[in-house]
C-alpha cells in the first residue's frame, strides 16, 4: 500500500513541481501553494475516475445494456464532454476561484461575530478517536445535505430550470452524472463546501468523500438494470434505484421524479418517504418539449439556452415578454 502511496505522491509532486509551482512562484501566488498542490491531486483523481468509468463501468454497460444501441446513441457525446470538463478540473477550478474568497469571507464574518461553528467532535467526543467511524459519519452527513439540495433542485422553479438539464438526457449512461449547468454546479458546490466547513469535514476526508461519492453517482446513472441486491440497494444507491428518479413522467405517474433523490445513501429517501423500490423499467427524460430540446445540442448551446431558461424562471415578467413574440 505504501508503495502505491509513494507512486501517487511522486507523480503528484512531479506534476506540481514542474507545472504548477513555477507559475505560482513567478506570479507571487505563494498563498495558493498548498491549494495548488491539492488541485493537482484533484485532477489526478479525476483521471482515475474517468478510467474507472471508461473501463470498469462501461464493461457492464456493453455487456448488459438496458437500452439497446439505437438512434439516440449520439446524445451521449455531450455527456462525455461534461465528464471531461468536470473531472479534469476545468469547471471545478472556475468554481473554486469564485467560491473560495466568498467562503473565506463568510467564515471570517461568522467568527468575527463571535459565533463558533459547532464541530461534531465537541458533541460526540468519541468520534475524534475513531477515524473510520468519523469518516463515515461525515460522509453520511454530507450526503444528507446533498439529498436536501437535490430536493431543492426539484422544488424551486428557477432551480429546476437549471437542474432539468441534468434530467433532459433521454439516453442515461455512466457519463450522465456530470451533465449540469455551471451555475447549478456553483450553487451546489458552495452549499456543500459551507456545510462541510460548518460540520468540520477534514480536507483529506473531503477528497475521499468526493472521489467515492462521485464514482457511486456515475455508476447510478449507468445504462444497466442492476442493483446491489435487496439489502444493498437500501444501503447504497445503484442504477435501478436512481433510474426511477430520471423516469419520464406520465399521466399516471405525474410526480415520479420526486422520488429516489439520494445521491449515495438511500436511507434519506426511506426516512423522508420519497423512496420507491418497484423494479419497473421506465424510459427517462423530461416531459416538456422545451426541456427535451436540450438533446442533440452541444455543451455551449446547452449552457446558453439553459441560462436563458434560468433567467426567465427567475424573472416572470421577463418571461412573458420573451415568450410572446
Amino acid at each position, binding site marked *: 500500500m505504501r508503495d502505491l502511496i509513494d507512486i501517487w505522491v511522486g507523480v503528484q509532486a512531479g506534476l506540481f513541481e514542474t507545472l504548477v509551482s513555477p507559475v505560482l512562484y513567478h506570479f507571487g501566488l505563494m498563498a495558493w501553494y498548498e491549494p495548488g498542490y491539492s488541485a493537482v491531486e484533484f485532477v489526478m483523481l479525476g483521471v482515475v475516475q474517468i478510467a474507472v468509468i471508461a473501463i470498469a463501468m462501461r464493461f457492464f454497460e456493453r455487456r448488459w445494456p438496458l437500452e439497446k444501441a439505437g438512434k439516440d446513441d449520439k446524445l451521449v457525446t455531450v455527456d462525455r464532454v461534461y465528464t471531461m470538463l468536470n473531472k479534469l478540473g476545468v469547471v471545478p477550478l472556475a468554481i473554486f476561484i469564485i467560491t473560495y474568497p466568498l467562503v473565506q469571507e463568510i467564515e471570517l464574518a461568522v467568527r468575527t461575530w463571535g459565533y463558533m461553528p459547532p464541530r461534531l467532535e465537541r458533541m460526540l467526543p468519541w468520534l475524534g478517536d475513531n*477515524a473510520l467511524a468519523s469518516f463515515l459519519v461525515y460522509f453520511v452527513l454530507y450526503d444528507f445535505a446533498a439529498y436536501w439540495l437535490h430536493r431543492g433542485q426539484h422544488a424551486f422553479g428557477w432551480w429546476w430550470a437549471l437542474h432539468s438539464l441534468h434530467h433532459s438526457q433521454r439516453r442515461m449512461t455512466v457519463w450522465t452524472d456530470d451533465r449540469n449547468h455551471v451555475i447549478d454546479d456553483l450553487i451546489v458546490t458552495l452549499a456543500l463546501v459551507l456545510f462541510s466547513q460548518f460540520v468540520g469535514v477534514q480536507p483529506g476526508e473531503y477528497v475521499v468523500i468526493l472521489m467515492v461519492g462521485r464514482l457511486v453517482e456515475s455508476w447510478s446513472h449507468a445504462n444497466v438494470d442492476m442493483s446491489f441486491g435487496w439489502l444493498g440497494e437500501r444501503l447504497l444507491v445503484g442504477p435501478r434505484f436512481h433510474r426511477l428518479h430520471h423516469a419520464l413522467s406520465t399521466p399516471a405517474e405525474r410526480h415520479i421524479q420526486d422520488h429516489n433523490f439520494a445521491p449515495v445513501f438511500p436511507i434519506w429517501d426511506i426516512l423522508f418517504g420519497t423512496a420507491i423500490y418497484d423494479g419497473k423499467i421506465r424510459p427517462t427524460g423530461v416531459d416538456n418539449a422545451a426541456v427535451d430540446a436540450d438533446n442533440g445540442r452541444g455543451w455551449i448551446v446547452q449552457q446558453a439556452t439553459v441560462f436563458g431558461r434560468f433567467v426567465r424562471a427567475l424573472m416572470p415578467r421577463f418571461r412573458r415578454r420573451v415568450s410572446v413574440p
Partner: protein
Amino acid sequence: MNRLSIAALAFSLVVSGTAKADSVIVLNSDEASYSILSRSTRTEVARLPVGREPHHLIVSPDGKEVIIGSTATNELLSLDINTGERKRVVKDILDPYHLGFSPDGKWLVTAAYRLDHVDIYHSDGFRLAGRIFIDGLPSHIAFDAESKTVFVTLQQSGRLAAFDLATQALKWNMPIGNAPAGVVMLPDDKRLLVALTGEDRIAVVDPKDGSVKSSLQTGKGAHNFFPKGDGRHYFLSNRVEGTVSLIDTKDDPKVVGSVRIPGGPDCMDITPDGKELWVTQRFLRRVAIVDIDTLKVVAGIPVGKSPHGVFMMKSTATVTSGLPVRAASTAGSPR
C-alpha cells in the same frame, strides 16, 4: 480488523513501549492525526487522531507538555512530554496556526493564518489579552529576548509587524519582501531573520524599527528556520527549490551548506545528540533524516498526509493514550 492484525498491533505496542530510543511526533496536517516515530528503528510506531488540521506544536513554559495547535477545531491539545499521554484540551483558541510562548513564559501568541488576526493570551489560564485584526495572512511569530515584543510575518501583504505584548499595541508594520513566513530572533537580540517564501532569499531585519538591513540569497521558497543549537548556525527550508540551507549568522549571515530535500520541505527538529536533522516533506508524506556532519539524507520515514510540525520527545512515548486507529506500519497498516 482481524485477530491477527490486532495481535500484531499489540505486539508492536509492547515493542515500542520498551524500545530504548526516543520518540518523534509529526503532525499530519491534512488528516487530523499525528504520527509517533521511533528514532532507533526509523519507523512509524503509531498514528493517533488529533483535532483537525494540526500544523505546529510547541513546548509549554514548564517544559512538561507538548502543545499542538488544532486549527479547524479552535483548540490546543497537549501531550505529556515524557510519555506522550494526552493531558488536556484548551478550547476557544481561534485558528491556532502558528503559536509560541514568550521566553519568560508569560504570554502565548497565536497567528490565525486563515482568519487574519493575531491573538495574545496570558499563558496562565489562556485568558485572551488582545485580538488584533491585521490584513494579510499572519503566518509565523518570534519574540525578543526580554519578552516585550512579538514579531509576526504577514504572508499576503509582504510585511513584518511588531506588537508590544503588555499593551498589545502595534509598534510598527514594515514591508519586508514577497510572502514572508518563518522568522527568528538571533541570540544577539539585535537581528531578526525573515524567510521570504515568494523569493529566493532571507531578509535581515532590525527589531527596533523593522528596517531591512541586508538580505541573503538561499533558495527559492525560503520558508522556515531551525537553530542548529550552537547559537550561531540555523537551518532554513526552501520549499520551492526543495533544499535545506545551513546559514552561519556570525557577522553577516552566509550560506555554508545545503542539502537537497524534495517534496516541499517545511518544519525541522534536531535529535538530542545533535547528529540528525529531521525534516517534514509536505508533498511526499514523508520525513527526511539528514546527517548534520555530512549534510546528506540518510533515511526517510513514511507518515500521513501533508506532514507539517515535527518534534523530538524527551523519551519514548507509551502508546496507551488511545487506540491507534491507523496503526503502525510494522503492524500491517491499512493504508
